[in-house]
């Protein structure tokens, strides 16, 4: 009977969102200072999604363990920011947190959270989310903000929360997860390239992850600013197209210019100035040589 049930679970694993992966171990060669941080990251992601997601976190951290350009402090920072970013804030996470709060005592009344419609639809599995995306796009609703309340005072409210938190099973099939996966991989790739080409600026590239936080408009703006800085400064430097002497300084200057402005006027102007200065310096360098 047990084997029949196990076969059925395997057959419907995708639909049930089953995760039979074992709890991940800490990577070999992890410096002592990073052990508590990576352990916390594993706990956070086990609670957030499950063991296979925590394993993905460990695999991503492993890429930097033992690299001679990565000291213990930098590894700790990467591990901490990676865990924070992998536990991104979506409506499912908000429901999970509210339920956890309820489990640990009487929950406080909290302010409604404002998500954009595309964030709500993006949290659904792709097969359900895609048609809704098309409909919302046609109606021009995608960028509308919806205030989500997480009521805990009534039974129906708690049931709704459980239903929302239950969507976690299909989170990895969602459109939003695809975007987050691509972002995390790009961030790690940029760190890796920076360690190869400009190791002195690696900490600045690692810290850019703090630009992408929260949900709603703040999240979208942070994401757009991050891409602008990486596409305008970091990537061309690593590709050898932009002779930036101080990449870390340039990133800091661009970050300081990033304002809460959806058109990114100040940020784009600053990036253009930095690029122009760097390109203007190039002939002088060649002449001096």
């Amino acid at each position: 009977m047990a084997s029949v049930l196990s076969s059925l679970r395997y057959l419907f694993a995708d639909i049930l969102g089953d995760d039979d992966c074992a709890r991940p171990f800490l990577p070999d060669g992890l410096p002592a200072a990073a052990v508590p941080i990576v352990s916390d990251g594993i706990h956070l992601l086990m609670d957030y999604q499950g063991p296979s997601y925590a394993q993905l976190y460990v695999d991503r951290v492993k890429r930097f363990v033992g690299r001679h350009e990565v000291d213990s402090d930098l590894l700790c920072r990467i591990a901490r920011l990676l865990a924070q970013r992998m536990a991104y804030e979506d409506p499912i996470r908000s429901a999970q947190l509210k339920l956890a709060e309820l489990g640990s005592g009487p929950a406080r009344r909290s302010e409604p959270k404002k998500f954009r419609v595309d964030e709500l639809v993006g949290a659904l599995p792709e097969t359900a989310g895609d048609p809704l995306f098309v409909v919302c796009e046609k109606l021009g609703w995608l960028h509308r903000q919806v205030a989500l309340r997480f009521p805990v005072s009534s039974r129906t409210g708690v049931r709704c929360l459980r239903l929302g938190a239950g969507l976690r099973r299909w989170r990895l099939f969602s459109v939003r997860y695809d975007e987050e996966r691509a972002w995390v991989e790009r961030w790690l790739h940029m760190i890796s390239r920076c360690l190869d080409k400009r190791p002195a600026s690696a900490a600045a590239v690692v810290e850019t992850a703090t630009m992408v936080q929260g949900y709603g408009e703040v999240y979208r703006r942070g994401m757009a600013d991050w891409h602008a800085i990486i596409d305008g400064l970091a990537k061309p430097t690593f590709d050898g197209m932009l002779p930036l002497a101080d990449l870390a300084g340039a990133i800091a200057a661009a970050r300081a210019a990033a304002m809460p402005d959806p058109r990114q006027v100040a940020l784009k102007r600053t990036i253009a100035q930095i690029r122009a200065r760097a390109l203007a310096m190039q002939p002088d360098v060649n002449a001096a040589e």
Partner: protein
Amino acid sequence: MDTSHLVEHAGAAGSLFASIFVVATLSMRTMIPLRVFAILTNIVLIATAIPSHNYPTLILHSVLLPLNSYRLHQMLQLVRDVKKSVSSDLSMEWLKPFMTERKCATGEVLFYKDEKADSMYYIVSGRFKLVESGIELPVGAIVGEFGMISPDNTRTQTLECIEGGLILSVSYDQVEQLYVQNPAFAFYFLRLASARLFQNIETLERRLAQQTVAARGGAAKSA
């Protein structure tokens, strides 16, 4: 002449044969024999449905017969193409019918180094570069086929689109399905993957030999 008793007997015999073929179809472990028995079942049931004027069964199996025949043809063609590829240019073009088209914009990254691999790509048009090695891949190249059989399943390079184009992609899950459904395909796929690996080893050995000769030449000059 009254033929109703003949129709009745034909109907009973047809149902018996069809039942045997249905049992045989469902007990097949792999795809090709399963399709063959499904086709036989379709033929028997069509033949039985005509004299007994059982039109719903006739329509259903008239639809299923070409469907089963087409799928069988696809499977046989796949095995033939992989087999041909093993003994000729080791190309993986035979995968094209199973791939989905995707447009790529300039600057788009298809996958990053060290990322978990889950699909392979065929370049149809545009320009694509492996970022870490700086190698530009030609049109017609297949990328990511070893990720499927490598133990750690990770990408060894980053692939970036440097000029917009078209690619075909197929997930490892789909190839795995073909693999388990069709033992002949699995066998030739393994041979093909090994042959491509040996080809890579040979290229590396040639390069190593060239570098060794160049290094010896340099040492002799400096001496």
